[in-house]
């Protein structure tokens, strides 16, 4: 079923990865730690009906069905670079809408400064949850200005098709200038808050994963370099390519971090 998303100029000039590449090589630890585990296991997750609790410092808190969230929403196609903290990358034609639109609809209260997100936990269909790979539910967070940035979207599709479960159906976050794990999948809760929310990888290993986790070739992961990345799809002899500051979105987002030491706020 084609979603009929409106084309945009985002990512013009980028060569997207194939649908097969994007949907067969995933990190979604709820479904296992192997890259092909999500594609193999996530099919068992029911994503319809689906609802999202939106609460905290908002004017209209409540439980919103996906239909309500998508009602009157214009879906756009945006081709974004996607850079994993593990130093591989893809180019993905997402379909979605700006998170700012959703937040405006529920009315962000003036004291709110952060947005917290939570992924579904369904142990019966999620072997990784049963094995306690991480402290589930998976949680993520953004500063409010990051969340309201026009590049930040909620994705519900890929290649104009509904987003497959292994990529975070029915709705996931996409923050293209941050490492992929910030772009939390299969969201069931969005909470506006006045304090920095906990994030899963930071809880698991604070030395390696900071709250910001902006793509930054000059700040290494303690266990590997972030200076280069391998674009998926190049085969056995793919050359590494240089990682771009803020994953190539420096012009758009560098201002959000003015005056911050990015090696401290990694």
């Amino acid at each position, binding site marked *: 079923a084609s979603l009929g998303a409106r084309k945009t100029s985002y990512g013009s000039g980028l060569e997207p990865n194939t649908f097969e590449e994007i949907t067969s090589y995933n990190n979604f630890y709820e479904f296992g730690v192997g890259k092909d585990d999500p594609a193999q296991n996530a099919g068992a997750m029911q994503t319809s009906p689906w609802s999202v609790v939106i609460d905290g410092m908002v004017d209209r808190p409540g439980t919103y069905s996906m239909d309500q969230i998508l009602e009157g929403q214009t879906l756009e196609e945006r081709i974004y670079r996607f850079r994993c903290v593990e130093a591989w990358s893809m180019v993905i034609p997402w379909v979605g809408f700006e998170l700012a639109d959703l937040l405006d609809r529920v009315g962000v209260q003036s004291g709110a400064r952060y947005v917290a997100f939570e992924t579904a936990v369904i142990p019966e269909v999620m072997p990784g949850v049963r094995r306690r790979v991480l402290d589930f539910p998976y949680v993520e967070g953004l500063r409010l200005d990051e969340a309201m940035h026009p590049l930040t979207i909620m994705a519900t599709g890929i290649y104009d098709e509904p987003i497959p479960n292994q990529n975070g159906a029915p709705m996931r976050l996409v923050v293209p200038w941050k490492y992929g794990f910030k772009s939390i999948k299969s969201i069931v809760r969005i909470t506006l808050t006045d304090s920095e929310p906990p994030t899963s990888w930071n809880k698991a290993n604070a030395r390696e994963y900071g709250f910001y986790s902006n793509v930054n070739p000059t700040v290494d992961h303690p*266990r590997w370099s972030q200076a280069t990345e391998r674009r998926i799809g190049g*085969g056995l002899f793919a050359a590494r390519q240089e990682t771009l500051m803020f994953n190539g979105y420096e012009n758009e987002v560098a201002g959000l971090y003015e005056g911050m030491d990015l090696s401290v706020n990694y």
Partner: protein
Amino acid sequence: MKPSQRINLALSRVPAWPLYIVGGLVPFWYLYLGLTGGLGVEPIEALEHRLGELALQGLIAGLAVTPLRNMTGVNLVKFRRAIGLVTFYFVTCHLLVWLVLDVQILSQIWADILKRPYITIGMIGFVLLIPLAVTSNNWSIRKLGPLKWRRLHQLGYAAAILGAVHWVMLAKGFQIEPLVYLGIVVLLLAMRVPKAVKRAVA
């Protein structure tokens, strides 16, 4: 005749040389899979990990020979040299994939070896295996004498520990599989302790 004796008798007719052929071909089989899409959309990482896992399995197989004989009487000693040499070959292939296909950049390779503890540990494990591979022949056993030779080959214990730790350190989150491998290595080494203590006392 005890079952173990019957097994040993059967094994006495099985030559060790096919292990070299099969072991020698395995990395090429994976290389072929990697070239033809059989290793998924990121074949470099997959190839590197498969070879690393094979190497660790080989180390474990080599370490299991003695406890197996002590516990069951089944004697695989005649295959141990082949197991060891094939394992060294897997480790070398794993290292080559990392150097040539994965990191690619010479300056970064050296920086990684020095800066990244899991790579440092893996490299030390590889280096420890070099003298073992070099002396895995009858001439070396004669030259060194069995006692010295056996002591030298106890470096394999350290290499196995380092190999398993190398994987544990590289895992993200709480992953069972590398911990299971480390547990098996530790167990196989622990099974040697009582005998070593007895030998020291005697």
